[in-house]
């Protein structure tokens, strides 16, 4: 049995009025004398200073303070920043504050050394790599031989006063059929395409 239960018993019953089971539980924690002392204390403690009352003047002072509080301007419990402000007051405040800030900053800057910015002109040479496509013009000279009959020509010259038969010349080797040019044959040109 904890002391709170014993405390409840002591408030309700004298030691002699305890049931046998209750008496046994009490005696397990304390003696009969201690139980009686506890009863004495529990009955007298609440009566101690129970008749003291506050002076009547205290109520009068507090009610006066309450009335004064009621008449005072209402202060927003949320703080100054949450109060409603008319628009014209805001504009007026801005019209006053902004020039002041500007003047203050100007005055601050006057005392400072202003850096001078020098403009220096430089000429830079820019190299631009540009690929120019040019038409590759290949000039060929063709010798066109006209086929004539097999009649040999009689060539005459001062060296040969006797006419000499001139057979037609075989020009197949002199003017071979053009096969065209290949990139593989021209490595420089190839380089333009493969780089």
């Amino acid at each position, binding site marked *: 049995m904890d002391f709170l239960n014993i405390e409840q018993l002591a408030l309700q019953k004298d030691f002699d009025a305890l049931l046998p089971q209750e008496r046994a539980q009490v005696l397990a924690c304390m003696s009969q*004398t*201690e139980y009686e002392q*506890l009863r004495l*204390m529990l009955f007298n403690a609440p009566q101690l200073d129970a008749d003291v009352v506050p002076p009547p003047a*205290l109520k009068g002072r*507090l*009610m006066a*303070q309450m009335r004064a509080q009621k008449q005072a301007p209402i202060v927003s419990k949320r703080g100054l920043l949450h109060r409603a402000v008319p628009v014209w007051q805001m504009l007026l405040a801005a019209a006053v504050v902004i020039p002041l800030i500007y003047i203050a900053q100007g005055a601050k800057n006057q005392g400072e050394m202003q850096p001078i910015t020098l403009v220096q002109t430089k000429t830079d040479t820019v190299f631009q790599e540009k690929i120019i496509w040019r038409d590759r013009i290949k000039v060929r000279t063709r010798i066109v031989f006209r086929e004539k009959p097999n009649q040999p020509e009689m060539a005459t010259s001062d060296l040969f006063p006797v006419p000499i038969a001139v057979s037609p010349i075989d020009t197949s080797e002199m003017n071979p059929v053009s096969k065209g040019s290949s990139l593989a044959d021209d490595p420089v040109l190839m380089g333009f395409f493969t780089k």
Partner: protein
Amino acid sequence: MPNSDRHPDIRTYPDARLMQEIALHNNERAFEVLYDRYSARMYRYFYRLLWQNAAKSEDFTQDLFLKIIEKPHLYDPSRNFCTWLYTLATNMCKNEYRRKLTLSLQEAEVQEQIYHTFLPEKIDQQRLDSELREAIGQLAEPHRQCFVLRYQEVCSVAQIAEIMDCPEGTIKSRLHYALKQITEKVGAFYKE
């Protein structure tokens, strides 16, 4: 039309409702009802904890109710008002204890002398009261507060735990120790 005429039954309002009236409308009548309910109780509480000093008890009671007037928003409606009030009062006493550590022995001797000199026919009860008062005053601060709240202010263990911000087990332990100390001292008087 004043509030008191529109709300004739304001005396039956619960404590939280009265605090709401004070916080939102600065209702004088609501404050008056609260003062009538709790002023005597809180004055006695201060009187018991502050070495039966009437002047100090009056000042502390005034400061406590001024807090209600000036800062009613401090009260959390989810809490029991009585417990909250006792918590404020207990914290005020703790601050006072820090400033003044021990009871003046000279004041106690003069008080006892008055009892013996002017009221001889009531000497037994008054001697018992004096012994009990001295025994309670000699307890350490947390034990004394627990004792006064439990056996003089009639608060439950759960309420005391909330007021003093301690676990219930700690409160029971302190009460047990305080009871033991006081019954030993009172027991010497009982044996006479």
